[in-house]
C-alpha cells in the first residue's frame, strides 16, 4: 500500500485552482483560433479576436472574473492510502488557491434561504472514483454559472432515438443563445440514471476539444451536432455568426431498457481544467 499525505493533495489542488483560472489548455486556444479562421461574419471575427487577445494577456489575472465553483475530480488508485481527511484536504486546497490566486469567491452556503457567501469558495464540488493502481490523478475544472445555468437534462424515450437526442441538444443550444458567452462547449451525456447522465455530461467537458468518442458512430454524431449548432447563427456572444460552439463532446454508458437519459452540460469558451498526477 502506498502512503500519501493528505497535505500533498491540498498543495496540488491549490496549484491547480490557480493554474486552471489563469491559463487555458492548448486545445481550447487552438479551437478558438480554428473558429476564427472558419468565421465569415465581420462582427464575429472582431469578437473572436478580442477573446484571443484576452486569453493571451498574461497579466496575472484570471481569464474570466467568474472563477467558478471548484469542481475537483479525483481518480484514486486502490493501492493508495491517504493519510488525513481527504474532504478537508481538498477544501483546504481550494481555500488556499482562491486566496493566493486572487480568485473570486462565488460559493454560497445555503442555496435557497440565506445565500450567504462562504468567503473562501469552499466547499469544492468533489467527485471521487476508485481506479486500479497506486496513483492519484487530480483535475480541477472551475465552472462558471453563466453557462452552468443553461444546462438541461431530459429523460427521453428509447423510441426518441438519434432524432430525439439531436432535437434536445439543439433546443438546449437555442435556449442558451447569447447567455453562456458563446462560442460554447457542449458536454452531452447519454445513458445511465438521471444523476449518472448529468455526471457523464460534466465529465465530457474534461475531454480535449479535438478528441472524439471512441465509437465512430458517436464520433460522427459529435461532428454532425457541432455542424448543426453552428448553423443556428447565434455566433460569438450571440451577435450573429458561425462560431456558436467550439465542440460537442458525447459520453455514453449503459442504461435501463425503458430509458434514454440525455443531459447537456453547457460550458463557455473559457473551458478551464488542469490535471496533475501524484
Amino acid at each position, binding site marked *: 500500500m502506498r502512503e500519501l499525505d493528505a497535505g500533498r493533495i491540498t498543495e496540488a489542488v491549490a496549484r491547480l485552482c490557480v493554474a486552471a483560472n489563469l491559463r487555458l489548455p492548448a486545445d481550447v486556444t487552438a479551437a478558438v483560433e480554428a473558429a476564427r479562421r472558419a468565421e465569415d461574419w465581420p462582427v464575429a471575427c472582431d469578437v473572436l479576436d478580442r477573446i484571443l487577445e*484576452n486569453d493571451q494577456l498574461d497579466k*496575472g489575472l*484570471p481569464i*474570466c472574473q*467568474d*472563477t467558478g465553483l471548484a469542481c475537483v475530480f479525483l481518480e484514486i488508485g486502490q493501492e493508495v492510502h491517504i493519510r488525513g481527511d481527504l474532504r478537508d484536504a481538498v477544501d483546504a486546497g481550494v481555500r488556499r488557491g482562491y486566496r493566493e490566486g486572487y480568485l473570486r469567491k462565488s460559493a454560497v452556503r445555503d442555496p435557497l434561504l440565506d445565500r450567504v*457567501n462562504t468567503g473562501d469558495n469552499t466547499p469544492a464540488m468533489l467527485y471521487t472514483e476508485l481506479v486500479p493502481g497506486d496513483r492519484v490523478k487530480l483535475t480541477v475544472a472551475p465552472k462558471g454559472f453563466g453557462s452552468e445555468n443553461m444546462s438541461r437534462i431530459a429523460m427521453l424515450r428509447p423510441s426518441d432515438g438519434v432524432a430525439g437526442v439531436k432535437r434536445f441538444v439543439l433546443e438546449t443550444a437555442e435556449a442558451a443563445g447569447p*447567455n453562456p458567452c458563446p462560442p460554447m462547449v457542449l458536454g452531452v451525456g447519454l445513458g445511465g440514471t438521471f444523476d449518472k447522465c448529468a455526471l457523464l455530461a460534466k465529465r465530457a467537458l474534461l475531454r480535449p476539444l479535438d478528441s472524439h468518442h471512441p465509437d465512430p458512430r458517436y464520433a460522427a454524431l459529435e461532428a454532425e451536432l457541432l455542424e448543426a449548432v453552428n448553423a443556428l447563427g447565434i455566433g460569438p456572444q450571440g451577435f450573429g455568426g458561425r462560431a456558436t460552439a467550439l465542440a460537442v463532446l458525447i459520453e455514453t454508458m449503459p442504461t435501463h431498457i425503458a430509458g434514454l437519459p440525455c443531459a447537456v452540460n453547457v460550458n463557455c469558451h473559457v473551458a478551464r481544467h488542469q490535471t496533475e498526477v501524484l
Partner: protein
Amino acid sequence: MEAKRVSAPLSREAAARLRCGDAVLLSGTVYTARDAAHRRFLDCLRRGEPLPFPVENAVLFYVGPSPAPPGHVVGSAGPTTSYRMDAETPALLRLGLRGMIGKGRRSPEVIAAMREAGAVYFGAIGGAGALLSACVRSAELICYPDLGAEAVRRLEVENMPLTVVIDAAGNDLYELGRSAYLAQRAEANGN
C-alpha cells in the same frame, strides 16, 4: 466599424443617438451591481429610501470582479448574465437609469421599460474579464461591503469596448444580428 465614443453618465439625447450593433468605446463613471445588490436596491425603494448611487442617467455594469492583485485597480471584470436582474430593472429604469452593461437576453418587460426610459443595453464580451479590467482606471467601494464581489463599486472606465445590443428604440442585436447572418449565409449557399 469605427467605434463611437460615449461617456457615462449618459444623457437621454446621447442614448438616442446609439443604434443596435454600434461599436462603442465608453468612458466615465459606471456602477457595479449584480443579483444581491439589485435585491437591496428594491428593498430601498420599498422602504422609501434613496438609492446608494445617483440613478438619473447612470450606467450600471453587471459585474462581480475578481479581487485586485497588487498593482491592479481591479481584478478580472467581465459581464455577468443580465436576465437575472430583469425583475428589478424596470423600477430602476423608471427612475432614470440610462444604460446597462451585461451579456445575454433581456425580457420583453425590460425592453418595453427601456423604450419608455430611452435607455440602452450594452454588451461587453463575456469571458474577456482580463481585457476589460485594463479599461478600469479606479474602483471605489460605495456600499454593501458584506456582499464581497457583489458589493456596489464606482468604477472610472476609459475606452471600454462595448456593443450596443438593445437600443432605445428596442432593436435587439440578438435577433437582428443573427437574422442578418443567416440571410447572408442562405444567399452564399445560393438558396
